[in-house]
């Protein structure tokens, strides 16, 4: 909680600013939309977080989102498969992609950046080739399956806010992950591996398997996320679906307090980091700034946010120092 204070403050500041100066920020409908988008992106960011904790990086997240997001309607609509076979198949495929990355990285000792960059190109390429660059969508069908992402729960006394169904898997994943990191042997081992691989290995930790596992989890979550994304948007174009999502996911994780040096996990931070990025995007529209400014505002606010966070931290460290010295 204390570690996430900076990002939580930034998040609240943006929310408060937007609800004062923007239109309809606090409307149930907007909050519902934001919950939904945060939930969707969080899945990717949590995956990215696991790999970052393990001291690696995964640039292929966006492309895995694309591949699974394109394959789902492609198999369902174009090929008429049943959802009961498509969903497991797509998830297995994404786990297999992660396994592939993990093995290349741990067994062949290739650099994670290069392996997953190749993945970035490869999976999107496969998606484009498979579909002949045609966009894929549900064409109004499969309402039942899509309700995984589109379902909404009525909540009494909250006006037109309805809780998106996607929140459930996200919460389950986040809690599980938080629990893993703080309470299980494997979480410990992953943290140790991320910070000092050889030290962990010398302590008998099966580091290669843990690293591989982290990539599997990341790709699996990316695949699951991709499926939810396509259920949510209804259709996608292979050439741009999920573009840059890896950067958003990594940014959210890093913003949430996962250092890229590895070995630091902060599940709450990741969720808040994701929410911050998405609230910022919405704020730009609600404040009527125009989409031209979107990038500039997001970049500027984030930079200001992290710089202020650092300065505040230093200042308070110095203050604490001074206080304790006086009390000496």
């Amino acid at each position, binding site marked *: 909680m204390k570690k996430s204070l900076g990002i939580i403050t930034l998040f609240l500041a943006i929310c408060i600013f937007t609800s004062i100066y923007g239109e309809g920020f606090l409307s149930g409908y907007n909050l519902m939309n934001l919950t939904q988008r945060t939930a969707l992106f969080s899945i990717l960011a949590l995956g990215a977080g696991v790999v970052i904790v393990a001291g690696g990086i995964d640039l292929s997240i966006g492309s895995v989102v694309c591949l699974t997001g394109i394959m789902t309607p492609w198999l369902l609509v174009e090929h008429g498969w049943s959802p009961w076979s498509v969903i497991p198949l797509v998830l297995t495929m994404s786990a297999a992609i992660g396994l592939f990355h993990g093995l290349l990285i741990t067994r062949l000792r290739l650099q994670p950046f290069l392996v997953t960059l190749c993945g970035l190109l490869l999976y999107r390429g496969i998606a484009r080739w498979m579909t002949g660059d045609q966009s894929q969508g549900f064409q109004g069908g499969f309402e039942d399956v899509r309700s995984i992402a589109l379902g909404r729960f009525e909540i009494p006394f909250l006006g037109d806010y309805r809780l998106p169904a996607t929140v459930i898997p996200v919460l389950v994943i986040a809690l599980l992950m938080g629990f893993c990191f703080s309470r299980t*042997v494997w979480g*410990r081992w992953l*943290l140790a591996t991320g*910070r000092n691989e050889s*030290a962990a290995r*010398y302590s008998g*930790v099966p580091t290669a398997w843990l690293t591989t596992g982290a990539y599997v989890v990341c790709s699996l979550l990316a695949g699951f996320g991709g499926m939810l994304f396509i259920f949510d948007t209804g259709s996608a174009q292979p050439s741009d679906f999920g573009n840059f999502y890896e950067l958003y996911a990594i940014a959210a994780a890093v913003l949430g307090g996962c250092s890229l040096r590895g070995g630091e996990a902060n599940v709450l931070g990741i969720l808040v980091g994701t929410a911050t990025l998405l609230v910022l995007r919405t704020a730009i529209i609600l404040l009527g700034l125009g989409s031209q400014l979107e990038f500039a505002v997001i970049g500027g606010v984030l930079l200001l946010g992290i710089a202020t966070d650092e300065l505040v931290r230093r200042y308070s460290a110095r203050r604490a*120092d001074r206080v304790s010295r006086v009390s*000496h």
Partner: protein
Amino acid sequence: MPAASPDALAANTRAVLRVRDVGHRYDGVAALAGITLEVRSGEVLAIVGENGAGKSTLLKILSGVLEHSEGELETADASGAWSACRMQSVRDAARAGIALVHQELNLSENLDVAGCIFLGREPSRFGMLQLAAMHREAKHWLACVGLAIDPSTLCESLSIAQRQLIEIAKALSTEARVLILDEPTSSLSAHETARLLALLRTLRANGVAILFVSHHLDEVLALADRVVVLRDGKQTGELLRSACDRAKLEQLMVGREIVAAPPRPQRTDAAVRLRVRDLVSAHAKRQPVSLEVRAGEIVGLAGLVGAGRTEVLEAIAGITESRGYAMLDGKLLRGGAAHRVRSGVALVPEDRARNGLFLENSLAMNLSLAWIDQHRAAGLVRTSGECALVDRMISRMQVRPAAPHRRVRTLSGGNQQKSVIGRFLAISPKLLLLDEPTRGVDVGARAEIHAQIRQLADTGSAVLFASSELEEVLLLADRILVMHEGRIVGEFAARAATEIAIMQLATGGGCEAASMERASL
């Protein structure tokens, strides 16, 4: 098992691990060949040898860190039946009841102390950690090694010596049948060392087999039951404790006897080179420190682990920010480390892996890094001069193997230490600060390094060094400052100092406590 009396010892020992004709090659080059020995329970087997003799390599093979390329390992099970074993990973070794304390620190520093101690073997049920049990047990093992810190402290915030003790606690906590320690005392001061030796004696009495490597021959002589001497990767002798003394060991290790350097004339007339007034390191809450070092003088800082010596040296070198001031030749030292190195202040750091070495770079690069700046011509490196310097430093520091293009990671620990000192000796600084200068360096090379430091002082440089080895402080220093809890509590001229007097000040306690510790060695 009941504690055995010394004469029951022989009866109690039983071979648990056999090494037959074991050898190892790194990239095709033999580092170890034809090692045959037996490790017995209830016995301390010391392994001694020069830097690069292959001690660490042997220990790594026994503990599954390296896989040996020649020969066989055999272990005995409880019933005494022998079976050949391949140790392909640390897990295999752990299963065979073998634990290793590495020469270099290997902790996952983002974990807390308890987490570090139990990493890989956490008490758990269905994968869930049992944190309470873990902390309880961690406390027990910390107490064993005499470390009074909370098990939930982050390892990042600990000093080198404390980390070393945690490594030892970690190995102890495996309750291994065979405990292997690679220079466990190199960063400990006398106090902790005495404690560790006492602990090892207890373990021996309980039937644990102990393999022990140290460059401190008095520790070896105080503890070992048998001594194996390695030289250039080969076994050159195996002696019973009763059959060896210091001179004999030195002879076997180095091939010659080491003669103590003659005492240096005391300098009281020379100008003050370094003047430190009310220095307080910014990140620690300490008392202000004041001291002076004259030109040509070698001053030693003695003290226990955590006494604050490192902080003083780092503050003078500009590594950490500080209040108060330090003056060199009457000029105030300003700015960060880079600036101070230029004005002639060099610090040989305590943690060589983290702050000293470029492990993936060549020996040449490591040796010449500080020199190239001093001798550059319009920003260009004088390459021919650089080659000459590297060769000169390799022979001066006796780095082995003398291969300038070897990656420093592939050097033995002691040779790595020599290359760090060499880098700073190469620039003949006006003020040389050394933090644990001969950690892990063998007796022969240590004498040589001491000679080099003296030689530098003779040219008029000031030298200030911190060492946890009283012996080294007494041997090298012209004047000794003793630190206790961040303050300088006393000063001795080298001739007037005795170990007991220093220990008394360093512990802040009575004379008796200190002398008892020495006696127990």
